[in-house]
């Protein structure tokens, strides 16, 4: 039993060590040549534009259901006009970044792990190295950069659409005047809130994509291994999103509030 635990711990530590090494190499390679600009643009399109639909839908329905649920509670205190304040603060500070990140993990993390994993088991990664190309520069850097920059953009879009979804419910179902809704949003936010909402997605975007790349590059065991890696990338990515969200929030609360 003890031996099993020791083996598991050793494997987990080795995994974390390799992840840290890959992250370090990725950051270093982002600032040095050769830089595969075309691949970066392709990944911005695939991760950013490609995830737009899922983020729009998620954001809209989250804002709408938030207004619906909080409306019931606020009614008990006669505070229905404050629904905008609640939707705005929740979306911008927490739900926008986290739900967007979780959606990206499901959509992008799984596809990256599957793509890199398939390349690994069919020797394409070795072929890249044999042809004198560093797989980290060619495959990892463009994806991580796209995640790092596009997740914040998608989060802002999700925030806006979520608030708009809340407005639809507040205006047409709860009968809250549009002016009251939008004013309560701006009144309910401290200057630190948008900062928190925009800084967190940078960390989340980096973590989601770098974990997916790490998992994808370590695939072994043929197509079965690719399947396992896809699941692992989504599970590890989702847990990492929640954990990183907690720690970054704690840090920002400590720094700004």
């Amino acid at each position: 039993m003890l031996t099993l635990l020791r083996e598991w711990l050793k494997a987990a530590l080795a995994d974390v060590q390799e992840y840290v090494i890959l992250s370090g190499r990725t950051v270093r390679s982002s600032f040095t040549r050769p830089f595969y600009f075309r691949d970066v643009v392709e990944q911005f399109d695939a991760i950013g534009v490609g995830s737009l639909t899922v983020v729009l839908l998620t954001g809209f329905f989250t804002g709408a259901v938030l207004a619906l649920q909080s409306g019931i509670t606020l009614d008990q205190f006669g505070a229905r006009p404050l629904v905008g304040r609640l939707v705005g603060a929740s979306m911008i500070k927490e739900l926008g970044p986290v739900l967007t990140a979780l959606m990206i993990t499901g959509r992008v993390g799984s596809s990256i792990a599957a793509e890199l994993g398939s390349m690994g088991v069919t020797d394409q990664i070795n072929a890249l190295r044999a042809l004198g190309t560093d797989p980290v520069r060619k495959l990892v850097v463009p994806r991580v950069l796209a995640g790092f920059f596009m997740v914040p953009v998608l989060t802002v879009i999700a925030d806006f659409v979520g608030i708009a979804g809340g407005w639809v419910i507040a205006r047409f179902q709860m009968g809250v005047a549009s002016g009251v809704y939008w004013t309560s949003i701006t009144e309910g936010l401290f200057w630190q809130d948008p900062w928190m909402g925009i800084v967190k997605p940078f960390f989340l975007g980096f973590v989601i994509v770098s974990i997916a790349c790490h998992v994808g590059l370590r695939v072994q065991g043929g197509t079965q291994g690719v399947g396992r890696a896809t699941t692992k990338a989504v599970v590890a990515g989702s847990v990492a999103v929640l954990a990183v969200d907690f720690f970054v929030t704690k840090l920002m609360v400590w720094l700004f509030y």
Partner: protein
Amino acid sequence: MELRDREGPGGVTLEEALGPGSPIVVFDRVKLAFDETVVLADISFTLIKGRTKLMLGASGSGKSTILKILLGLLRPDGGVVWVNGHRVDELSEDQLMAVREDIGMVFQEGALFDSLTVAENVGYKLYEQSDKPLDEVRRRVEEVLGFVSLGEYIDRMPSELSGGQRRRVAIARAMATKPRLLLYDEPTTGLDPITATTVDDEIIKLRDLENISSIMVTHQLRDAFYVATHTARRQNGRIVIVPADEAKVREAEFMMLRDGLVVFEGDAGDLRASEDPYLRTFLS
């Protein structure tokens, strides 16, 4: 450590001084194990420039591992590996990139990039890493695809090709930058005999017409003997594959691996004449 850049008296490089017959690959007492599993116990061999080394052995005998060590994709636990005058066992990944520029590798199943066309696969290195104008790269791609008789497939995707065509595109990709050394990892495994022969013909053509040194790893005896006993010639503007003369046959060196050790080295005649029970079993 570099050999080829060192100049001797009269400004002659070591490689030029050694001339024809000098080694292009040297493995000296190379060892590799993954945890408790010994993959290479003690491997030593030399490949002479312009020759072909045919590595035989059962699955798991360490054949493909040798190619990966040679390319620097794996690092040995012990021993010395020289390739093209570079000691690859002690180079960093960045330094290895320069060594790999002069080596072409044909992986099992081809390992073509799925998302790129045949032209982009073949010209990958030229498009990515050279300053050559695009039309010049395209001409080179057409030239090498013509060499492997796949000119009309230039704009296809790898998924649209048959197994044999994929291997030939992989050969074209490996030779596009005119390397001095080509490595073939099971290039004919899983192919029918007729398609396998077309792949073998490409290997022979590259060796005899382009003077490229090569190591072919295989467990397909038929293909190994075919490559060893045939030669390519230009005849009336066409390339023909004909049986090789005795001297040429002796140039192709066979090497048999078993449990991470070299159990046989010699030419086709020596292999056929061997009385070793393991070799006899393998040959039968």
